[in-house]
């Protein structure tokens, strides 16, 4: 294995991240027990809030690395959330629910793929269509399936959490990690896998080439259309899974428009993470932390409750500041540009 692509800078970055985690853990260890419990709760909530963002964000990354903007993530997540709940409800099997969500997500994204790749449609228009379609269809199906408005029947067979009883007694690790959803763990695994796929495999190289300069990929004898299309489908699969986590992982029912903008935040996480897997993970965790801080303030500082809406807004303001002032992101060069072979005359 040749690890040359990891340059020194990113090694330092990895070291810095690891160091800050260790220092954080040591600091937590010296805190009073009650505060350790709060910290543990914050970590657990951060992971829960981050999971759908990171999954959908990684999905967006696959699509955009290949050159196709996918703002339809929101609609795809909703369809994933609905499918997950509906399948788990009827089949009484959460794993089938997840599988269904992944498949429907991929299917939904392939509509976007056909429109953008084959018919060279405008990515934003098609993506908006996907959002509206996903929102409307999931709401309609909610009423058709459960004959209810707003929220579906509770799903009893949700994805079972993993238990680590050994950690239960620890004041910090207990609340943080003793009960954890397998989807949260999967988020970490898929981040690593995505890094490998993107930077170490032929498919990843071709996908990146499709997003940077499709004519070069074409001239290398690889189908630009297929490469881009597969990228879009993967984005749908991951966004579908992210949606299903909301309805049968973290929650236990499908609700109308339950993603409430997470598709867009995951796009922000993707940009903030500079279109790299670990960047998306870090950005998703950061946004998840901001959201859990919001809950934290509401629970532990009820005096601030009148400002709850203001606090809920803060993550988004931070995103704008972060994107506008601090970090300069470099998107794939050929993003949102349809590839025309015969461009002349």
């Amino acid at each position, binding site marked *: 294995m040749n690890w040359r692509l990891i340059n020194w800078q990113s090694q330092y970055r990895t070291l810095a991240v690891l160091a800050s985690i260790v220092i954080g853990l040591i600091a937590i260890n010296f805190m009073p027990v009650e505060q350790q419990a709060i910290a543990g709760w914050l970590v657990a909530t951060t992971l829960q809030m981050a999971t759908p963002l990171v999954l959908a964000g990684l999905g967006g990354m696959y699509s955009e690395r290949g050159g196709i903007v996918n703002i339809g993530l929101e609609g795809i997540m909703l369809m994933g959330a609905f499918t997950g709940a509906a399948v788990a409800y009827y089949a009484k099997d959460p794993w089938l629910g997840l599988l269904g969500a992944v498949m429907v997500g991929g299917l939904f994204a392939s509509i976007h793929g056909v429109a953008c790749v084959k018919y060279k449609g405008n990515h934003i228009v098609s993506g908006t269509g996907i959002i509206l379609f996903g929102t409307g269809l999931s709401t309609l199906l909610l009423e058709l399936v459960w004959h209810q408005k707003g929220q579906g029947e509770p799903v009893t067979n949700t994805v079972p959490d993993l238990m680590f009883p050994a950690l239960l007694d620890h004041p910090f690790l207990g609340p943080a990690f003793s009960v954890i959803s397998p989807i949260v763990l999967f988020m970490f695994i898929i981040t690593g896998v995505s890094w490998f796929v993107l930077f170490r495999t*032929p498919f990843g190289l*071709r996908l990146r080439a499709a997003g940077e*300069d499709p*004519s070069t990929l074409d001239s*290398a*004898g690889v189908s630009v259309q297929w490469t881009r299309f597969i990228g879009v489908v993967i984005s749908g699969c991951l966004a579908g899974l992210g949606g299903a986590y909301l309805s049968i992982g973290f929650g236990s029912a499908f609700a109308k428009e339950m993603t409430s903008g997470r598709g867009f935040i995951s796009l922000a996480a993707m940009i903030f993470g500079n279109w790299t897997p670990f960047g998306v993970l870090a950005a998703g965790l950061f946004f998840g932390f901001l959201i859990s801080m919001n809950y934290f303030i509401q629970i532990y500082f009820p005096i601030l409750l009148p400002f709850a809406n203001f606090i809920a807004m803060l993550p988004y303001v931070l995103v704008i500041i972060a994107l506008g002032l601090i970090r300069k992101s470099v998107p794939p060069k050929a993003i949102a540009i349809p590839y025309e072979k015969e461009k*002349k005359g």
Partner: protein
Amino acid sequence: MSMSMEYVVELENITKTFPGGVQANKDVTLRIQKGEVIGLLGENGAGKSTLMNMLYGLLQPDSGKIIINGEEVNLKSPQDAIVRGVGMVHQHFKLIPVLTVTENVVLGLEPILKKMDVRSIPGGRTIGAVLPIDFGTAAKRITKIGDENGLPVNPNSKIQDLSVGLQQRVEIIKMLYREADILILDEPTSVLTPHEVDELFVTLKEFVKAGKTIILITHKLRESMALCDRICVLRDGALVGTVARDDTSPQDLAQMMVGRPVVFTTEKEPKTPGEVILSVQDLHVLDNRKLEKVKGIDFEVHAGEIFGIAGVQGNGQTELIEALAGLRKPKSGIITVDNIRISGKRPRFVREAKVSHIPEDRHKRGIILPFTIEENIALGNHYRPPFAGGPLNAVLDLDTTHSITENLVEQYSIKLSSTEALASTLSGGNQQKVVVARELSTKPRLVIAAQPTRGLDVGATEYIHEVLIALRDSGVAVLLISAELDEIQNLADRIGVIYDGQIVAVKSPGEATQTELGLLMAGHTDEASEEGVAIS
């Protein structure tokens, strides 16, 4: 059968029309023998690249046959051509700047770690797409190919950090990595220094010795005469004729290309320069990455003089031009035009000081393609009469714009369907004429002409040269920046050679040969040290 086996490539009655109605190739028939160097000569837009893109599978002919090694083929994608041994270096390199040399070379043909290679089993190709690439072996093979062919390159460098010459080397290695033996090179010398061109030709001759066949697309007569065994001339998409090198001359070829006799050197009367118009003193300019690209330049351009700056691209010309045109603030130094200080001023101030700028990148700075020709003519002067009128000059005067454009179109004989057509519908040469017409219509004192004939055919080039000389004769100061030595030597009254952000020598055209200038452009200063002039 035995007759056709002698040819490695046969193109028979190839016709290609692009969507939109442009007929790029008309019934072209071409037969190429193994181990020969064949030149495909023609002006821009003659259909040379289109023809070769069809041989490489990037485009498909409307009708006609392609026969490779005696087998009639239907090339649906470059993959079909690559497996038959066809390789192509495109004029605009097919390299991805942010990727490494290795990644670029293996793209589409990635080696998989040996112990995991499953591509021989059914379905293995799909699985193989997500197995680890063997970058180590690939890098070794690239190094080996490079060393064996005298094309050393660091497989771990990113393309964006390589010079244009090295990038071309990567493109050639890419063909060799795919084991191509029919090599198509599309205008390979347009980005190289004279020295690099010589090196390339040596490499290509080695390839021929090794039994490879080379197709060289070019519009330069000298190159086709220097390298090719046979030369095919294309004009307006049709094959005008195929001639052996030994039976032809540059004059004949030029006539075949253009369809009429061509004058090679532009006539020009000797003229004594007048007062100083442009004066540049100790100019330092940074590029976007804050690196100093212009490192202390001094020169003057007089009225009625063409001052040529010769140099290989990327030696500070771009930054110098941008500083002169007001597009980039210099770090230090003084620029004056007619004793008005323009350094650090805005482009509008510079233009109002009667400076005209024919930019080096026509599409980026010269013309807006989705605008009409009239709108393009008004640009830059759109805010003042005669193009604008009404209160505060807030309204465009479309009628005047129209009549001015009509006049300019006639004066510069720009070929177009209507002055209200989009600029994108014009050919490159006519687009450049629009830019020149606009820039010269303001009666400038100084004209900055940056690569004014880049990408233009012989006819348009001739015309632009005549215009520049007419300007000089009428007492305008002309600063000509060009990578074409012929152009500089033909036109300039004095030649400054730029290397690494400095003017390393100023010569008169009669005083220096092309070889001397070429050496100076490449940073060799032997000659200067002989004269006892310290140049660093």
